[in-house]
């Protein structure tokens, strides 16, 4: 039996990062094949190549035995390869039927929509899912789970033979998830091949036939699900000795810097309490969407919490605005470097001083020699590669950009530094440098909170780790209890 999809030796390089190296992957008809790996392992790049969103640099893709080069999602769709996005790509003003068939509406000779046919076909596709959404319903009025159903209905609508499901259960309730699994089994029976991407081990072992693990853009192996277990998969996902790559600060804790109790914000997170001390690196681990970034953005004043109390250096304090937080010495390097961290059109020097305009000015007039001095100091200290203080940061690599984000805060000598995904999408060398820096800062007495969805990173740099899932803290681990297995269990098998 020939494979539905064969990927041979696919490589992809981005500036500064080798995203995929010689990836081989097969998909059989009627198979659910899990693609696993940590964030940054290359799953999403592979998906995008398959969906025609990005071209591969190298290698070949055979679909039903035929070599294909996908130049657009449209071509992929015409071949029956369909990506169901994690982020929904629906137009709220259009009806469910119109969304399902967007780009392929049945029309008559003069461009009029054949609505009854469209609705009938969409209705069948929705019914095949067991979904009670009417084809004429405006999508904007649907709940997220139902929007996802509309998106999934495209599988039936386009008679897809290869379906890529990217974290499909992220926003579904248990009942909705069971419904989805029934759909998947049904698709299997019809010979559709499904690539299933998820972090949730229990789902993987419920629904998939085979598992392929990616790490650092390289395939670590393909396993038959029934012949393996979560531990084996986890090991393949991590694969390396942690201590060799990470430098953990020596434990010399001082006074408590920050404590929060009963922090809550409707729709984001509930009842979060923790504290962090001088010299301590506190890890916050959880999947994307678990509420981690929302919690720290509340602490930093971007979105105020609805409830909870905050103690700063032992004194109860009102929740600050970003300005007040910065002046207190509570600094945040945000999750999204390009959108939240930097003004990419400006140079490194301007970006470093941005949170400290007052400190670098007298009577509102900028002191340029000081700016230059601090720029040079941190350029050298962090070994940033750039061509000049005014070079637009847009032109730098992710690693160097991230170092500028760090410099922005380090030059303020903060008391608590919150790092949200500090090494996402940057090269290995810069990663190691940033990890070493975290250790050094902590040893100098800085309190650090590191948020990461990369487990080795959290395990490698933290003294203590909190896990979060669905907006709640689900565990606290330190010392010998800080293991992969415990963390995975705490975020994936939590009793919500």
């Amino acid at each position: 039996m020939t494979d539905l999809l064969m990927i041979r030796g696919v490589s992809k390089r981005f500036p500064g990062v080798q995203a995929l190296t010689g990836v081989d992957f097969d998909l059989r008809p009627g198979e659910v094949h899990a693609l696993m790996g940590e964030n940054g392992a290359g799953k999403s790049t592979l998906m995008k190549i398959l969906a025609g969103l990005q071209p591969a640099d190298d290698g070949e893709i055979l679909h039903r035995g035929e070599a294909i080069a996908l130049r657009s999602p449209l071509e992929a769709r015409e071949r029956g390869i369909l990506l169901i996005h994690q982020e929904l790509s629906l137009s709220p003003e259009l009806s469910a039927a119109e969304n399902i068939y967007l780009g392929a509406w049945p029309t008559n000779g003069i461009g009029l929509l054949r609505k009854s046919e469209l609705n009938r076909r969409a209705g069948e596709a929705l019914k095949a899912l067991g979904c009670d959404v009417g084809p004429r319903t405006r999508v904007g009025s649907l709940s997220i789970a139902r929007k996802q159903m509309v998106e999934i209905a495209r599988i039936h609508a386009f008679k897809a033979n290869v379906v890529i499901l990217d974290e499909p259960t992220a926003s579904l309730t248990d009942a909705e998830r069971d419904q989805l699994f029934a759909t998947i089994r049904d698709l299997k029976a019809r010979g559709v091949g499904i690539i299933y991407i998820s972090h949730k081990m229990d789902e993987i072992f419920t629904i998939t036939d085979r598992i392929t693990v990616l790490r650092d853009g390289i395939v670590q192996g393909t396993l038959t699900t029934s012949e393996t277990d979560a531990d084996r998969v986890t090991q393949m996902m991590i694969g390396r000795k942690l201590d060799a790559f990470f430098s953990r600060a020596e434990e010399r804790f001082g006074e408590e810097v920050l404590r929060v109790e009963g922090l809550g914000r409707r729709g984001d997170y509930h009842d979060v309490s923790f504290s962090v001390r001088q010299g301590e690196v506190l890890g916050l681990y959880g999947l994307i969407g678990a509420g981690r970034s929302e919690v720290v953005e509340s602490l930093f004043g971007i979105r105020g919490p609805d409830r909870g109390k905050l103690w700063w250096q032992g004194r109860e304090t009102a929740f600050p605005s970003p300005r007040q937080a910065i002046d207190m010495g509570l600094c945040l390097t945000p999750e999204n470097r390009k959108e939240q961290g930097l003004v990419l059109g400006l140079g490194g020097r301007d970006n470093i001083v941005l949170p400290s305009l007052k400190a670098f000015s007298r009577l509102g007039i900028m002191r340029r020699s000081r700016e230059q001095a601090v720029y040079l100091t941190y350029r050298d200290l962090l070994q940033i590669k750039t061509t000049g203080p005014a070079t637009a940061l847009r032109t730098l690599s992710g690693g160097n950009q991230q170092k500028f984000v760090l410099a922005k805060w380090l030059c303020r000598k903060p008391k608590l530094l919150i790092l949200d995904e500090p090494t996402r999408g940057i090269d290995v060398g810069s990663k190691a440098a940033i990890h070493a820096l975290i250790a050094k800062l902590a040893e100098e007495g800085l309190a650090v909170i590191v948020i990461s969805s990369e487990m080795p990173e959290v395990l490698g740099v933290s003294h203590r780790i909190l896990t979060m899932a669905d907006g709640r803290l689900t565990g606290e681990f330190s010392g010998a209890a800080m293991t992969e297995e415990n963390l995975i269990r705490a975020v994936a098998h939590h009793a919500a």
Partner: protein
Amino acid sequence: MNGTTVRRLAADHYVWMLLALVCVFFALLSPHFLTAFNIGNVLTQSAFIGLLAIGMTLVILNGEIDLSVGATLALSAALAIGLQNSGWPTSAAIAAGLLAGTALGFINGAVVVASGMHSFVVTLGALIGIRGLVFVYTKGNALLVEDFTYADLLEVHVGPVSLTAIIFLGMLAFFQWLLSASRHGREAYAVGDNPEAARDAGVKVGRHKIINFTISGFLAALCGILLSIRLGTAEPQAGRIWELWTIIAVVLGGTRLQGGVGSLWKTLGGVLVLAVLQNGLRLLNTPNHVELIVMGVILMIALGIDRLMTLLRARERTA
């Protein structure tokens, strides 16, 4: 039906409540307001901004804007009158005026799509330049039609409703039907809401936008022709800042400036609110400046409502 739904419905249809409000207001203050004759008048007056607003709605639905409509209508009016004065048959002169506006709309769209510039810059340039064309053609003078029967072309009434108003309402109905029934019309929403997703799904976004700019140019030209017939003259400054009134009408109607949300029925509401305000204020003999101030204030209020709606929609998306 919960509170959110009620608020949503209210926000979605506030333009009709606003219309009812201003109608009641003027009906109470002026005995001439609620007469068949005056209502016909309002409809006729609304037709000109209304035609522009149809095209503007389509363009804004795509997340773009067309600032050049006022200048375009002046050019078409000038051509229609100027060419027949120089011996062209009336129908040919009208056709030339329509063609010129349509072509300018096409050029606007093509430049926006080909260059990737924001339509604000492109049509701002066109607003200045097309006005220049009008002056080049008219040498800065108002053109007076020599054939007096030209003005009779629109002297057809169905009851109190003038042919001008019928043409406007016909166009509105046609384009609303296009928006709701045709592939192009439905795609307008997808393009405005999420151009990338639309492109990925196989919608030809560039071509789509060019068509809408072209429609906007055509409707501006039609507006100019009707105006020239009604007035019998073509002023070189005709339609100055009408793009402003047009945008006001469209925004009042609840079309979202970022694109993806809106309908022509509600644009009609916005157009009528403006026309009733104008008509009512004139019935009450208020001076011109009151009109300008009231319009501006109403627009700012509409903006507040627009923001509220955006917030509601954002909540709807995350809920």
